[in-house]
């Protein structure tokens, strides 16, 4: 490939800032990419009038790893491993949405026990992700101790993931047609222990923040967005619900057996940073409810579909079944073919709508995988939210959107 020098002239970028910037009346300042409050490698080019943000120009792509391109070169099952790496705080949820897309594309059924375990693990991951959000958001607003408490509880969830999959974060535990294996005996006591412990811990965080005047001063009436604008700018998940729009994909387009569980969708009223905080705190409680119900009603049975064209047979069958050996060989060398056609599946990630557009071409490799990631959508609303606020508030605004740069850049 020929490399040519590409020059970017001032004229091409002039429209991004106001005229005062060109005359030197306002200041242009780089925030990031290595700035602790940008939660990763996000660069913001700020146009400042004193401490006020006149324009905010996000520059992303520092964590772009070409995951979509890479997945096209792998079989459906190999590509699953890469989904963990997009949104690294919602690893189980990424596996889930990709597997749901495959299952829809090839019409594969999942046994009820696998569905219930999937729900338990995704909801626990949601809590873990919200804990990282709360920890860093509070730390950005100078509440150091919350950070330590949140990471203490997150560790319990990562332990549960490790019990199931052997991995703390990049689990790849959810597979097309079910799960990698059944959960071991230690799983249920560990989850029950967490369910007993965690409600009191949420109260502990809330005692530190919810009525704390310093926290309220920094968050109330900051970055207010109306429900209509939020929809127009593609906000989803807790950030949209904080503006009072009742839309949760788990309720609206139930997937993966979520319609069997009772839970409420917490809504905010003002659409500011504080309401986004309240909504997420309440969401953690609702996730606990879902986990409790799923664990109490956990059905017995297999955790993988027995459709051998897509799901490998258990190892024990290989020794005495010729057919099982053939399936094993075909699935691990060539992979399974998927028909020509496209599906779009959306799931509720901790951040918002995580969509997977999957197109097959009849071969064993995905022809096109596209992840509609909530962080990407939320970051483009940042300039609208930040306009007119102080630089210190910008830190709170980034925190309230709960962005993960791996999710935005893929």
């Amino acid at each position, binding site marked *: 490939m020929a490399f040519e*020098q590409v020059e970017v002239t001032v004229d091409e970028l002039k429209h991004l800032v106001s005229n005062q910037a060109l005359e030197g009346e306002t200041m242009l300042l780089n925030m990031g990419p290595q700035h602790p409050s940008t939660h990763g490698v996000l660069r913001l080019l700020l146009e400042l009038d004193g401490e006020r943000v006149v324009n905010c120009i996000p520059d992303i792509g520092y964590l772009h790893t070409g995951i979509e391109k890479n997945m096209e070169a792998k079989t459906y099952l190999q590509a699953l491993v890469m989904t963990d790496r997009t949104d690294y705080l919602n690893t189980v949820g990424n596996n889930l949405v990709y597997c749901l897309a495959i299952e829809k594309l090839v019409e594969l059924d999942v046994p009820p026990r696998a569905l219930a375990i999937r729900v338990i693990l995704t909801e626990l991951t949601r809590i873990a992700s919200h804990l990282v959000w709360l920890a860093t958001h509070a730390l950005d607003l100078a509440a150091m101790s919350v950070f330590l408490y949140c990471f203490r509880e997150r560790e319990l969830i990562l332990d549960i993931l490790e019990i199931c999959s052997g991995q703390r974060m990049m689990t790849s535990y959810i597979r097309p047609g079910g799960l990698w294996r059944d959960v071991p005996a230690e799983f249920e006591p560990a989850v029950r222990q967490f369910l007993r412990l965690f409600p009191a811990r949420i109260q502990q965080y809330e005692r530190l923040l919810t009525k704390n005047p310093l926290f309220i001063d920094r968050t109330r009436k900051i970055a207010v967005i109306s429900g209509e604008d939020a929809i127009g700018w593609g906000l989803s998940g807790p950030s949209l619900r904080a503006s009072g729009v009742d839309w949760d994909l788990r309720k609206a387009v139930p997937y993966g057996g979520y319609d069997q569980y009772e839970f409420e969708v917490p809504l905010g009223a003002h659409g500011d940073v504080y309401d986004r905080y309240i909504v997420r705190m309440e969401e953690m409680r609702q996730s606990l409810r879902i986990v409790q119900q799923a664990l109490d009603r956990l059905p017995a049975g297999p955790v993988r579909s027995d459709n051998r064209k897509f799901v490998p047979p258990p190892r024990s069958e290989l020794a005495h079944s010729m057919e099982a050996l053939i399936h094993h060989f075909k699935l691990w060398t060539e992979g399974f073919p998927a028909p020509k056609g496209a599906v779009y599946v959306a799931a509720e990630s901790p951040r918002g709508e995580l969509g997977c557009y999957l197109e097959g071409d009849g071969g064993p490799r995905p022809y096109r995988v596209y992840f509609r990631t909530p962080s990407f959508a939320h970051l483009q609303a940042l300039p609208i939210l930040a306009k007119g606020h102080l630089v210190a508030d910008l830190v709170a605004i980034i925190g309230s959107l709960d962005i993960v740069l791996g999710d935005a850049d893929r």
Partner: protein
Amino acid sequence: MDLVDRAVEILRGKMKDAIPAVETFRGETAVVVRPEAIAEACRLLRDDPRLRFDFLAALTAVDYWPDEPRFAVVYELYSIPHRVFLRLRVPLSSTAAEVPTIEGVYPNANWHEREVFDMFGITFVGHSDLRRVLMPFDWVGHPLRKDYPLGYEEVQFSFNHEEIDRKKPYAQE
């Protein structure tokens, strides 16, 4: 009547020439729209009180190289009041990889269109700020095109260490 069927009927009624086909697969409906009519179709779907597809969930593209029409731009619309998805597909030939922007209808199309421009080199006519978004500004080529090589780095072992080292672009004096 199903809301998706109603949407297709309304689109056909208002702009029959611009809808060459409607595809259904696995219970999902994709309406094929001619490029010049896409903004109009989106506006119709969003503003019609019976439909209200108010949320642009996703916007991406697919490259069918070496087939023609080479590209398809995919719009995934969602109606929050009615809780239904609808997909629009715009096929584009490689000689005229251009489609009007829908930024005026859905503001959040801005970055999604930038991403498609970055990854596929499809131009969105009338876009307010069509720059690369994920790749560096001086990048050459569009990575998600099918004729763009994936690229690998050879693994270094003791037997080929020197050979690989010679090819590395160390800074010259």
